[in-house]
């Protein structure tokens, strides 16, 4: 079932920050870390109930990469999409990889 979709070039990403891509009608937030690793989770903020997570700040909590919602600042793991403040809340996480100078997303793929 795994299907990698070409999304954009690496240059379109913003290091230490996020962008949002449209993949099969899903809004996918893609984050490009300082160490050049990439993560993808759904762009929907379940607390603010709007599509804005790609615009949150990123970093880590005890080594786990995370994004902080730009609206109410809850933190989500970039690996699992689970909210640090409330484990019962999570957003979907997706596969994402860099192939050459392209960025590819796999909606069915697990995050790395």
């Amino acid at each position, binding site marked *: 079932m795994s299907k990698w979709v070409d*999304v*954009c070039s690496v240059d*379109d*990403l*913003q*290091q*230490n*920050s996020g*962008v*949002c*891509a*449209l993949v099969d009608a899903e*809004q996918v937030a*893609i984050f490009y*870390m*300082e*160490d050049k690793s990439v993560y993808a989770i759904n762009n929907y903020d*379940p607390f*603010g*109930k*709007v*599509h*804005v997570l790609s*615009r*949150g*700040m*990123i*970093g*880590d*909590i*005890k*080594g786990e*990469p*995370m994004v*902080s919602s*730009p*609206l*109410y*600042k809850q933190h989500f793991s970039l690996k699992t999409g*689970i909210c640090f*403040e*409330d*484990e*019962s*809340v*999570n957003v979907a996480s997706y596969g994402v990889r860099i192939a050459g100078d392209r960025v590819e997303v796999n909606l069915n793929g697990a995050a790395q």
Partner: protein
Amino acid sequence: MSNKQTLVVIGNGMVGQNFLVSLMASDIEDNYDVVTFCEEAIPAYDRVHLSEYFAGKSAAELSLVEEGFFENNNITIHLSDKATMIDRENKTVTSEKGKVIAYDKLVLATGSNAFIPPIPGNDRENCIAYRTIDDLDDMKEAAKISKVGAVVGGGLLGLEAAKALQDLDLITHVVQFGPRLMSAQLDDGGAGLLKQKIEELGVSVLVDKNTIKIVDGDECKHKMMFSDGTELETDLILYSAGIRPRDDLAAQSGLKIANRGGVIIDDNCLTSDQDIYAIGECASWNDQTFGLVAPGYAMARTVVNQLAGGDAFFTGADMSTKLKLNGVDVASIGDPHASEPGSLVYTYQNGVEGIYKRLVVSKNNKLLLGAVLVGDASGYPILSQYYLNAIDLPSNPDSLILPARSDASVGLGPDALPASAQVCSCFDVKKGDICSAIEGGCTTLGGLKKETQAGTGCGGCVALLKSVLDCELEKAGFEVNTDICEHFAYTRQDLYNLIMVEEIKTFNELLKKHGSGSGCEICKQTVGNILASYWNEFVLKEEHVGLQDTNDTFLANMQKDGTYSVVPRMTGGEVTPEGLIAIGQIAKKYGLYTKVTGGQRVDMFGARVDQLPLIWQELIDAGFESGHAYGKSLRTVKSCVGSTWCRYGVDDSVGLAVELENRYKGLRSPHKIKFAVSGCTRECAEAQSKDIGIIAVEGGWNLYVCGNGGMKPRHGDLFATNLDKETLIKYIDRVLTFYVQTADRMQRTSVWMENMEGGLDYLQSVIIDDKLNICDKLEDQMQRVVDTYQCEWKTTIADESKVKRFRHFVNSDKHDENIIFVEERGQVRPANIEERELAKAEMA
């Protein structure tokens, strides 16, 4: 087909839903096809906050179900369909609508019914239980044609229901069968005072009233007849006289039921059938049922764990309660009735202030067994600590309820705030609640937010929250950790000094030298902010972008629906007709909502991220600059019209305001900075409530510093008088730079001043007398910032690679279709959730 087992959950109330959510978040979600029956027409909602339905909360806002939860998790929910039979032999559940589902595992989460006392006439029209949204809708309808309402039952819930009747503008009575209000939780003394307090709220309380029948009234719809021969006329009757577990379905199918009601469960939450669990209010554990959500959630967790093969047990729950009813503080801990033989009682009663406190302690005076607090529940956190953890009491336990007579005010620090002081107004969190969370083991800001919700709304109270936390920890003997976050073991001031002394220009350099990990939004913003204060480089430079909060990244403030506001600078609140016309035209063209702000300028709301550069291009063409409404930086310099027009004006306040705003615009600081200039002591610009306030007087300008409006208003301190303009600006340069260098992150000048050792005198000695011999440096630093000012929007628009970021999608020119507006009073506003759903359905 599938080798999954089928799990059926009967009841989608608070606990049923909590169970589903925990199950979906667990590793075993894929093991089951999940089906749930929900008798009500809507899925789970927050019953605990049901009363807020009257304060304007909608059903959608009370919902506990995330958008798409059932679909995304492949859960089949049968709404408005009640399970009517369980065939344990064949393992099927049958519903009212005729569905028959075979189950492998079954979970009962059927909750309770409100208990309706068996009185003749109890089912007359407008006699309603207080349990569901349907009930509340009935109440609303009934209230429309009612003048008087009566609540049957004076327990926790009954009092809440009474409040609801009052909110509906009815004359309200509470009718209590026994002699005491909240009889389960209070003793006579406490209940007596509570009654008095409730009556002060305008609710009449009738105790010892046994209703024998309800008949037609003379003035009102009904007449309640009591056994003592008295009667009460009322139009609406609400039953809140306790709850009865809904165990009928379980009973029919032969499951064991407790004598006092409820499906019997063991520590695993299993019923007498090994494939059937019961959780929440319908369950009876150790002959006890639990009318609170927390124990229900604990049962739900237990079952998920059991299904996953774990060995978690349900171990009962603490039933201590604290009620907050508009100004009536009531708390009860453990057993307040001193029912244990030999137990000792301490009572403190203060008739003047309306306070009653009672402690029940063990025979040897060592352990707290129970407590009642009415009128002042601030001792609740500490007392529950003693109770829950069986901590040895101090040798004089009464010291715990006697007032601390320290009338000498300790200043205005967090310590001096009374426990009843509201810290977070979004969620009505009092200092006492925060202290209680801290006592409960919450020792980080994050933990506190999660525990109390304080700071998770508008965020405006976070600074105060933090200082309460620090102060409490310090009092409790903890060493206060002043590290800004887990990545830097430094304070903001330390970081500022490091950056200054080592001439560090990027976050990565600082992190490499002095930090660990990859940072978080706290340290990134703080360092980004310091770098901007000190070096004043373009905040969207490649190496700084990741340090900016979303508002700074997009140079606009994100609104609740993910759109942004656009605030051009209008120095001193001055704007030309051409400027106004340009703003009007731009707002019209992009369909923006316009509003005059509290800061004397015009804000345009509802811009999508992709529209921001286009809008700003037009604003810049019309001569506007960024208003920095997004930054921790100078916001506005408000002015009054001053001597130019005003007959009382002593000097040109607008002129000075414009000059000052132009001087300090763009200055990044620990928190936002606001100024105002008034043309005379009538003070129409409200300068004394600003970080920097200036008032024209005959001899020159008077300078006020460290004022604040906002959450905790503070009048500015008169800093210097009769200044000429040059000296005035010199002082402001120095004060602001000193603030930028020494304040904590997110600390307004007011709090900075409050926390400054030596206070105003000290600040004056540094700024006016140059006691530290740093004033030249302070002025130089400010001049550098002034000289390197740039309009961030202008710089951004000129750089295509920066503009590129303002697309919603990196791979498509589409915009976010979920942003939907509706019209109100001739302008747009964000659609609420229901309107959004409706609009999307229409589009589909």
